[in-house]
């Protein structure tokens, strides 16, 4: 499943106020805001976090479980193709911006990983 398919229910992406849904979720689940944001962007949430997210976003509680792929749309009792329909409702510009945001986030993560890898190699080279 491409990451952006979760956009049908996902929360507004960057630069949100401190009282926003992300902070409510992190307060409710006890996960640090940055960690939660990272999980949300990567669409890799534990079920309880996904449910807390659904609650904060004001959608059905199964929404998060479907989005993270734990249950299928049919299992959650969605009408067939509901997700596709929600996606189709988004304009090309919305989709493009969303995809761009996620690519940028992915790029940042990869850059950090590459930097860490280089640093690790250097430490081993000098102190290993």
């Amino acid at each position, binding site marked *: 499943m491409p990451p952006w398919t979760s956009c049908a229910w996902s929360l507004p992406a960057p630069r949100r106020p401190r009282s926003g849904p992300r902070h409510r979720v992190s307060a409710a689940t006890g996960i640090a805001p940055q960690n939660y944001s990272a999980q949300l962007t990567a669409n890799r949430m534990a079920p309880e976090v996904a449910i807390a997210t659904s609650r904060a976003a004001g959608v059905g509680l199964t929404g998060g479980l479907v989005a993270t792929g734990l249950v299928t749309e049919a299992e959650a009792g969605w009408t067939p193709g509901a997700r596709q329909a929600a996606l189709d409702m988004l304009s090309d510009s919305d989709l493009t911006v969303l995809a761009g945001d996620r690519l940028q986030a992915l790029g940042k993560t990869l850059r*950090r990983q590459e930097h*860490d890898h280089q*640093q*690790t190699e*250097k*430490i*081993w*080279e*000098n*102190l*290993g």
Partner: protein
Amino acid sequence: MIEILQWTTLIVCAAAALSRVPTLVRKKNRSLFYVLALMTLAILLSINGPYLLIDGLLGGTNLANLLLRFIIFGAIYFLGIRIANGFGDQRGLRLIRGHAGSAILALISVALLVLFAFMDTGGSSAGMMAVYAKDERNRALVEYYGAAGRAYPAYVCLALLPAMLRAVRSTLPALLRISALLLAIGGIAVTLSLFFPAIPPALGYLTFIINYTAILCFVFGLALVWVAKVRAGRKTRDSTRRPVAHR
């Protein structure tokens, strides 16, 4: 208690040095072996029994203490450069190896030699306690001498501390961050040694605890880097070898 701490530290440090023998043979990062060997020797010289023995061989004029100071300087200098290189700390590297670092090392070394020369150094004893107890003049000289001996390690550790703390907060592998934390704690302990004159005599054991904590933190910090490397090496070897039939 102090004796136990001293001998334990000696054994840990000697074991770490011995564990570097294979890499020494492979000619990889040999300076780390020498650093650990120097540290082992330094610990040996800071324990009363071995100190008396070695100083006796050197003429019983506390020359071994002077030797100890320069052994520590050498170990901390090479270790500092290694750590700064490893953690990519250009600023720390400049501070240690640049003009400022060389000037400070030269200044402190000269101060040590001069102070030592002015002392009545007869009466072999670890930490020059016998000299300290002689009279007012020798007491002051030993104080300054000790301060000079602690100043250079503290300088190197302070130069490295920001990079260590940065590494602790970074997203590096957990083992390396713990290692950086241990090195940072060691660095802070060495820096604290600058305040030894402020410690009341009744709490004199604190100086030992701080010194040996510093050494143990450094040794374990370095050892963790090797553990992390060995583990990572095994992982990649396994993943590349898995397709091939194992014995």
